[in-house]
């Protein structure tokens, strides 16, 4: 077990506070979505501030796990409808933000992006007061290569300490499943999906699930059964993975919020990997007008079609 150096986070907190203070008092932004300390020791929660005096509430710590971009897509009462809105993003969150811009859900000049140099955040299974180590770090951070967000309006000027080499959970698990036979994989997923209680927390927290009416909520015709029973659960998770293919930014929020601990992000990571292989597409900091499944190339592989 190695400790991960998070000494930069105090400097980052200071820089975020300073920037929030400046932008709010100068009237550059009408609100800032960020993280604030929560009641439990060491924990953090999302906050929307509209007053420069509240900037002192903002923090950044290893417990700042949320992807705040979701608040920009699903109307939140606290966020003013007019003016530019500031948002605090980590590298993974920025990819989601960029994806939303590519899908015309957000306009770049309507948001003020405060990027956070990040050394990793805590896994959802550990207490927020715990120290960030190679054991307590979130799985997504183990495979993250984007510690420094790019193309932001403001990024605190701190040096990110070199990250230790960590075990890659997702890659290992995908490789393990790929090596199994179809029947064994089916048994694995059947067991996982049978845990699902259809709370739709994964849909609620996903920045890309912004449809006003979800296909899975429609009942005329009903495409996916809405009850939390095995057939409907399996269909829901397949549809969810398919609708996020080529869009998912890999923030792993779905997996974090899942009350039944279903490894949801495995499906998304697997699809991202396949699309990278097939169409050389990857979620990045670069705004793409069209995702891999919204466009085509006449020379696409069709070896699977007779």
């Amino acid at each position, binding site marked *: 077990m190695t400790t991960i150096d998070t000494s930069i986070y105090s400097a980052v907190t200071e820089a975020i506070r300073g920037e929030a203070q400046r932008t709010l008092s100068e009237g550059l932004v009408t609100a800032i979505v960020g993280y604030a300390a929560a009641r439990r020791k060491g924990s953090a929660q999302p906050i929307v501030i509209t007053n420069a005096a509240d900037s002192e509430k903002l923090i950044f710590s290893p417990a700042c796990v949320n992807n705040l971009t979701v608040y920009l897509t699903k109307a939140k009462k606290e966020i003013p409808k007019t003016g530019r809105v500031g948002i605090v993003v980590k590298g993974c969150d920025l990819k989601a933000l960029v994806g939303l811009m590519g899908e015309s859900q957000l306009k770049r000049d309507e948001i003020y992006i405060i990027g956070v140099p990040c050394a990793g955040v805590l896994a959802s299974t550990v207490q927020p007061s715990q120290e960030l180590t190679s054991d307590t770090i979130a799985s997504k951070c183990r495979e993250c290569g984007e510690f420094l967000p790019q193309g932001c309006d403001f990024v605190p000027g701190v040096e990110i300490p070199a990250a230790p080499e960590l075990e890659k959970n997702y890659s290992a698990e995908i490789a393990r*499943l*790929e090596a199994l036979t*179809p*029947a*064994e*994989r*089916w*048994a*694995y*997923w*059947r067991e996982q999906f*049978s845990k699902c209680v259809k709370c739709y927390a994964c849909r609620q927290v996903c920045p890309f699930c912004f449809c006003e009416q979800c*296909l899975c909520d429609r009942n005329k015709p009903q*495409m*996916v059964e809405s*009850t939390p*029973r*095995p*057939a409907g659960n*399996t*269909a829901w998770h*397949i*549809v969810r*993975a*398919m609708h996020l*293919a*080529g869009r998912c930014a890999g923030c792993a929020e779905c997996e974090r919020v899942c009350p039944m601990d279903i490894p949801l992000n495995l*499906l998304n990571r*697997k*699809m991202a990997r*396949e*699309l990278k292989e*097939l*169409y050389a597409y990857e979620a990045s900091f670069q705004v793409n007008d069209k995702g*891999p*499944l*919204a*466009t*085509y*190339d*006449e020379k*696409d*592989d*069709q070896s*699977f*079609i*007779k």
Partner: protein
Amino acid sequence: MHSEKQKHAFEPRIIAFVCTWCTYAGADLAGTSRMQYPSNVRLLKFPCTGRIDPVFILKAFQQGADGVLVSGCHPGDCHYIAGNFHARRRFAAFRKLLEFIGVDLDRLQFSWVSAAEGGKWVEMVTELTERVRAMGPMREFRELALEEQWSGALDAPELKEAYNSI
């Protein structure tokens, strides 16, 4: 003269999602040319392969299909110019997802059949039917649907018997 119809222990149910401009016309040509092909295949006509949502395939399996066929115009022949190009990418991705979930991809077939290829249609449908017949019924999704009717913990002999007779 019709050849003697062979009797099989298992007749697979195959659902074919076809585009109206090419494959449907191709299947029609096979019919008007009096070519013989297995009657296991049920055709569902769509305006274009681009209209065929992966969720339809899922639904077909859930409703008891043993095999699914998706067929449309050859690349470049799409009535709507690019519908089949989009479909090609979507299905390439969907195949990978189903494979990862644990569905045997031999049950899922994609093809391009033009309005002039009645022969290719017959050949492909025959091959798919025989392949799925050899694989036996698709149990995975049906078992999931059955799980909804009684709890997995219940294991009474009469339930087992009822299950086995399905």
